[in-house]
């Protein structure tokens, strides 16, 4: 893939349970933080993509008016938990095709988002919460690969600990020990409450620019590979083999091909840990470790994983999550994180974002 799209800068607001701010207000607050810092002139913004599962109308144009921009395109993307990186994919397409030069992507969500549950899928029957399919993935992994509840707790402990270094995380001030996690309430076997992310409110934005505009950027981060794969929407469609998330495997392979890189070239990654088991499966499906060895990879230190705290530590504002994940990689590659969570010598990062039992996944590979 040619270097056609760079990410100039980003911003994430602190995730919280609820506030009295409207979705457009949240978006504007995050976007204004970017516009105050960037060298790109506001008049040059020619695209605004909103990522949200809200049913509110015309958000793209409302937010455009509130920040007084007149872009060529302003629209909203909804793809459940995979909305954020879907919006980035669209922005990248607009720039690499030459239609736009500077596109803002903003993800916004309220805690009670309709995106928390897929209503269409009748194949889930009365077991229609995300934890039901996640528990079946976990049970399969336990049966085939001897993964244990202790392994899941290690993922939760690591990510919550990382969140303690991230002031934007919902659980920034909340410490959970391994025993707290192991003793937390069982919801659906083998998943406990601290194996699950927490739906919350949040906003996160990034500014993507063309190669030409990137010359004005202080520290552009380049999209080297971006790929999404979709395998329908129903759990029935993907459940013939619960050992892997096929969409993650397919999207990863294509993104690495585009980037002409391999998993061992990645220094830092944000993985979609909506449930602890999903992080372990992502290690394997992306190719950081061979299938079945995910539980042995949790405590490795060759790749920094979920340094912002993941979805487990940060919370999960559906439409904002993929953008917040991408923001973390940008900040790490630009060496702009603070509170002790900056990892050294990182030049390449990966973002993994997925939706609805893994029926859809996106992989983005970023480079300094």
């Amino acid at each position, binding site marked *: 893939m040619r270097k056609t799209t760079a990410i100039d800068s980003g911003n994430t607001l602190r995730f919280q349970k609820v506030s009295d701010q409207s979705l457009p207000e949240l978006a504007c607050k995050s976007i204004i933080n970017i516009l105050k810092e960037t060298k790109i002139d506001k008049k040059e913004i020619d695209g605004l993509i909103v990522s949200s599962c809200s049913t509110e109308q015309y958000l793209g144009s409302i937010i455009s008016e509130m920040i007084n921009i007149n872009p060529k395109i302003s629209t909203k993307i909804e793809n459940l938990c995979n909305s954020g990186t879907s919006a980035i994919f669209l922005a990248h397409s607009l720039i690499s095709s030459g239609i736009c030069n500077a596109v803002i992507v903003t993800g916004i969500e309220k805690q009670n988002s309709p995106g928390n549950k897929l209503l269409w*899928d*009748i*194949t*889930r*029957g*009365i*077991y*229609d*919460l995300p934890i*039901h399919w996640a*528990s*079946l993935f*976990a*049970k*399969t992994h336990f*049966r085939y690969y001897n993964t244990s509840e202790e392994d899941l707790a290690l993922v939760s402990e690591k990510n919550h600990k990382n969140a303690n270094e991230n002031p934007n995380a919902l659980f920034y001030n909340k410490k959970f020990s391994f025993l707290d996690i192991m003793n937390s*309430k*069982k*919801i*659906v*076997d*083998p998943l406990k409450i601290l194996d699950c992310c927490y739906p919350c409110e949040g906003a996160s934005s990034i500014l993507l620019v063309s190669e030409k505009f990137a010359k004005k950027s202080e520290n552009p981060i380049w999209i080297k590979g971006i790929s999404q794969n979709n395998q329908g929407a*129903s*759990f*029935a469609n993907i*459940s*013939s083999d*619960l050992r892997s998330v096929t969409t993650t495997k397919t999207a990863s392979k294509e993104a690495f091909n585009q980037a002409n890189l391999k998993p061992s070239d990645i220094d830092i990654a944000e993985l979609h840990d909506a449930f602890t088991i999903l992080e372990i499966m992502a290690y394997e499906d992306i190719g950081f470790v061979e299938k079945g060895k995910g539980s042995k990879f949790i405590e490795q230190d060759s790749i920094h994983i979920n340094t912002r705290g993941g979805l487990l530590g940060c919370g999960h504002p559906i439409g904002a999550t993929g953008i917040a994940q991408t923001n973390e990689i940008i900040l790490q590659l630009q060496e702009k994180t603070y509170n002790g969570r900056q990892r050294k010598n990182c030049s390449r990062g990966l973002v993994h974002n997925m939706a609805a039992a893994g029926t859809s996944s996106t992989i983005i590979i970023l480079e300094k």
Partner: protein
Amino acid sequence: MNLKETIFEKFKDGIFLNTFCPHCKKQIWPPSNNCKDCFNKTVLKEIENKGILLEMSYSHIPKQENFFGIGDFSGIRILGTIVEKNIKVNDSITIYNIKIIDNKISIEFGNYNK
């Protein structure tokens, strides 16, 4: 009545209908008016009441404290409640009971060989 309503209505008689493509000779699930491959019109056909339990777990959620799992009935995969304690993954299962609760399919799996 639309397709979903027609299928749900039949559940009241304990009959699980699904859409079938006569041209491709395969079940189309979730139900659809057209075959997802050849796009010919589908017909309604009762599903085979013998399947395999692909995976199972236990829900501790209040008012839903029971075993549940995913069954595969000749390619029709659906989550349901496991009403017999001795059932294991890969066992043959059958549908004991089916009803609609809050516009969702509530299905009970039992042991096929019992």
